């Protein structure tokens, strides 16, 4: 019995280890390419670590490119998007969870519909609508569009969060609810941040410097650092928050 248990434990740890390795190896490769000098990029492409590591790509990206500006813009856009999405979707999620009203199912249907078509379909019409308002090529326009894209899923999450709090406990929950709400904010925020942070900055970056892969990877790693740190800090709230919503069954 104890031997069987020992074998099972070892197998379990090995499986976890395999998952960790699978999750991390591509990230390691990203890092490896970003510190490989351009001259060694192809000759030592397959080595696990270049014979000579250098920070030349990082130096270039930080000083000779518009990456810092893109990065700043991305940060502004994702931070404002996250804040607005959190406020707006918690209001709607609250309404969906606490009220019985006609038209509720239409709203749910509407929110689901927004998840079903390729967003590419919207780009041309959206451009046509936003350009007379002067919102194309502006950060404000970007924030509005991102908020709209992220709000449906966030509303569902918020609804299940409010569903998880017993209604008759509402007043009492206000006191200890503050902490639960904080935890919840920590879910919506990262979700939105993740979805919006870089695509913009990195895409424009790539179209400008698509020749040099080392620099591209360096930009990628730089952009990833804050996202990964943030995600590492909040991921446990993610599971907790979803559990809180699911408990009532």
């Amino acid at each position, binding site marked *: 019995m104890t031997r069987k248990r020992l074998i099972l434990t070892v197998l379990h740890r090995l499986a976890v280890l395999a998952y960790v390795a699978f999750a991390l190896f591509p990230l390691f490769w990203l890092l490896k390419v970003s510190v490989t000098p351009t001259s060694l990029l192809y000759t030592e492409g397959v080595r696990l670590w270049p014979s000579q590591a250098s920070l030349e790509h990082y130096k270039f990206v930080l000083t000779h490119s518009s990456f810092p500006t893109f990065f700043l813009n991305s940060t502004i856009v994702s931070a404002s998007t996250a804040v607005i999405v959190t406020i707006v979707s918690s*209001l709607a999620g609250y309404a969906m969870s606490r009220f019985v009203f*006609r038209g509720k199912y239409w709203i749910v249907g509407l929110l689901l519909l927004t998840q079903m078509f390729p967003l590419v379909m919207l780009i041309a019409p959206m451009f046509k609508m936003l350009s007379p308002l002067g919102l194309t090529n502006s950060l404000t326009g970007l924030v509005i569009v991102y908020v709209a894209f992220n709000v449906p899923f966030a509303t569902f999450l918020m609804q299940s969060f409010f569903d998880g709090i017993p209604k008759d406990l509402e007043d009492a929950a206000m006191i200890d609810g503050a902490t639960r709400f904080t935890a919840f904010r920590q879910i919506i925020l990262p979700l939105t941040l993740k979805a919006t942070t870089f695509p913009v900055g990195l*895409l424009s970056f790539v179209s400008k410097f698509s020749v040099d892969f080392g620099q591209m990877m360096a930009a990628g790693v730089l952009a990833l650092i804050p996202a990964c740190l943030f995600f590492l800090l909040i991921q446990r709230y993610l599971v907790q928050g979803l559990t809180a919503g699911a408990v009532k069954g």
Partner: protein
Amino acid sequence: MTSTHAAAPPNGDRRTAKQKIAVRLEPWLYSAPVLILIVAIMLVPLALGVSYAFRDIRLLNPFSGAFVGLKHFRELAGDGAFRGALVNTLWWTFSSVILQFLFGLILALLLNQPFKGRALAQALCFLPWAVPSFLSGLDWAWMFNPVVGPIPHWLYALGIMSEPSNILSDPETAMWGPIVANVWWGIPFFAITMLAALQAIPKDLYEAAEIDGAGPIERFRSITVPFLAPTMAISILLRTVWIANFADLIIVMTNGGPADRTQIVASYIFTQAFRRLDFGYASAIALVLLVLLLAYSMLIVILRQTMLSRH
């Protein structure tokens, strides 16, 4: 709710009437910002996009814009590339969802056991989710390349490949590239939702079953599976629709090639819109995809309903 209003005394003063209106309006006030945003930013452009499907809309061509009726759809019916893309979409979507789900569920079960360093292992295993899809695509394309990536050499060493070559340039295997990248990227989503559902199962159920002499497999079958089923159904449905529309990895890694073997409907729409700048045709394809996905979702919802009512 209407009945309570009808039962209210007819001689109620104006103040309560006002209050009644306020009560009725309250949920709408809360929902208003979301509704306005979705209608203005998604539904109006969607309606416009649907109308484009029946018009000749080509960017950079000022003379386009005329109404062409069902021309795009007739063209679509005879478009071999579109039919190929439909088959590829099925292949891409179902292999991605099944693999993501299976590996995600296994990871959730592994992480549901208490062990030393679990918090760290969980954080690291979920990390791929924080990587933007675009960057994941680049990274995996890089790793599959025999000049700058290790994977072909590993496959060669294992005897799976006769020589280190790029699976992304071989029409027979190219689709596996984006699928592997998608599985890597999507495992955390299923693992997070499944782990949350697992942790919501009352522990005493397992204890009771163990006392009754149920083995681990029996316990998994009779407690874990029924408890997870609702979460599984919803997350698989949403994920299927989402992945069918998800073209980022394919566009970055293979651009639909070689020989259209990795072209899915979503990436085909992208190609039509941004390479040929034919937004009319692109919208027609998108409309067909939307109808197919709606039909699929209805089917799943009806199936679920009948299964629930049978119980």
